[in-house]
């Protein structure tokens, strides 16, 4: 009797200790999660708060939004100090869309071949494409600068689009290759049994199924083109510069004073659409980002 009670009491104590441990573990997890949230979001938050803050209070360090105004967004688009942010936005969209479309059109075929077909030199091709995706842009800039100077292409859109293809196309191919590997290819076999050619099976069955993967790849491709700075900073001019260059060179009324509030407004405009896009398609984006590295 007493032995049984003691045993039960001991079990209770053991269970309580385990529960306690679990509780502490979960508290620690929440604290860590809060630290991660703060670390990732605080600087971005500061950008948005500053974007809405009156320019006279640029260095106001109160953490909550104060002196709220939309003036900075007007200043960002103002062209009187030589900034061409509006034009740069259009340039970035144009360059990004063109690069993305070209890379997808070329890349989708390559990815299909790499994911589905067996052929000699497959690993060589894969290695080449992976190597290309990690290729340093700085190794391209010199010969392209000379070439484009000679043929008068400096400051043209094609001079900005062509180098971007060098890193967006490999990214597109390897992201899409890993997406393609995971698709239900039995359906393609089924379509072929029903009399489709391989090309028809690809167009009518696989393409519709692949649409989400292609869309995700398009977002990743667009973002990497949108973020490009090194090549654009050297090969563009005032008329064709993308937003990254415009923001890096953003000038204020006084040369000695950096117009931070307007820059933060411009940064917010450039970032918000991307952040929304990324958050909406979060799962797919993460799958695409990590596609090459695990599996």
């Amino acid at each position, binding site marked *: 009797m007493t032995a049984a009670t003691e045993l039960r009491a001991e079990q209770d104590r053991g269970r309580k200790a385990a529960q306690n441990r679990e509780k502490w573990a979960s508290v620690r997890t929440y604290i860590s999660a809060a630290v991660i949230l703060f670390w990732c979001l605080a600087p971005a938050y500061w950008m948005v708060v500053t974007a809405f803050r009156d320019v006279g209070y640029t260095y106001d360090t109160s953490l909550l939004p104060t002196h709220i105004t939309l003036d900075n967004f007007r200043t960002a688009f103002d062209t009187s100090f030589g900034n061409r942010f509006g034009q740069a936005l259009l340039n970035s969209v144009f360059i990004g869309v063109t690069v993305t479309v070209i890379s997808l059109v070329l890349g989708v*075929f390559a990815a299909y071949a790499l994911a589905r077909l067996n*052929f000699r030199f497959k690993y060589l091709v894969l290695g080449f494409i992976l190597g290309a995706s990690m290729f340093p842009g700085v190794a391209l800039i010199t010969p392209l*600068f000379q070439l484009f100077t000679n043929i008068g292409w400096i400051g043209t859109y094609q001079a900005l689009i062509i180098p971007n293809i060098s890193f967006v196309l490999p990214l597109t191919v390897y992201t899409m290759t890993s997406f393609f590997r995971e698709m239900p290819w039995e359906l393609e076999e089924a379509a072929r049994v029903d009399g489709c050619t391989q090309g028809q099976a690809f167009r009518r069955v696989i393409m519709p199924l692949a649409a989400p993967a292609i869309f995700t790849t398009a977002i990743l491709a667009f973002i990497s083109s949108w973020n490009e700075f090194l090549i654009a900073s050297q090969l563009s001019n005032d008329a064709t510069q993308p937003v990254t260059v415009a923001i890096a060179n953003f000038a204020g009324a006084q040369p000695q004073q950096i117009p931070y509030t307007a820059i933060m407004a411009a940064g917010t405009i450039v970032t918000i659409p991307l952040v929304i896009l990324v958050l909406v398609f979060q799962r797919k984006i993460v799958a695409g980002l990590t596609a*090459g590295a*695990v599996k």
Partner: protein
Amino acid sequence: MATELGPTPVKEPASGGTPIHHGPKGVGEDNAIASQGKWASWLLAPTIVALGIVIVYPIISAIVMSFQKDAGLDPVTGLFTEGGPAGFSNYTNWLFQQCAAPGGGTVACPPGTLGSQFWSATGTTFYFTIVTVTLETILGFWMAIIMARTFRGRSLVRAAVLVPWAIPTAVTAQLWLFIFAFEGIGNKLFNTTILWTGSEIPARWAVIIADTWKTTPFMALLILAGLQMIPAEVYEAAKVDGASAWQRFRMITLPLVKPALMVAILFRTLDALRMFDLPYILTEGSNNTTTLSILVVNQIRQGFNSAAALSTITFIIIFIVAFIFVRFLGANVVEQQTGAGKGKK
């Protein structure tokens, strides 16, 4: 290439193929491969041609350029010098700081010239790479472990880490420049009065902090994807056997996540070695924050051919580092990519 893959890669049975090996095999299989090969070459041709134009052609032309003399005014004599074959002089200019002397021959590059900055830029590049990749690996691993746990709000955290990743680097640089301004929020929050861009150590750390902020999420997501491949039963079994949390981490998590981790570190290392945007905008390369990429860009307008030599050197350095990773540290990107790792799960 295929020999580097080690054991025969395991493929999903549905696709029905084995990698091509030389040697005897059935005639039917040969035909199938031949017809697939024809298909594959048509499908791959546009990509290969495009990459040939945008990557291979510039590399070759950079190498050709790097053996040419830059035409232009001689900085010392003020006379116009013609171009022409340069031998290795563009390379010795960078590697051994040998600048052209007035009467022919070479002298040590005077301080302040770009030629004299090569080794310090190399040092800076490796300093940034080693410090940022180490920090990002540790922080990224920690974030990944937290994100792998189940708790309410987990999807919020996973979404939040994408925010720094989605912000363009040029914007990140301006944002941190503002945070690190003398009267900015950085000094205010930590109650310091550091002139962040004014001297070497703070300037370097401003770049390191901004880079770590921007790219740790990528690292964390890659490691998280690796962690999620580990079956929960393995941990349960280890728990039953009485393994401590540390033992579970060291004996299960680390070895099983290693392939994904190595690829993540390789990606980040190669990325860090070509770092440009952050130091170029944040510190303008001052106070020993000039990386090799910045040095190339500074050289371009002073002479293409010498810049071509420097960018070729940079490319070779990055290539060697990648080679070391793949060959000796087991970062097998192709194997990971082709799904061969599946057999090891």
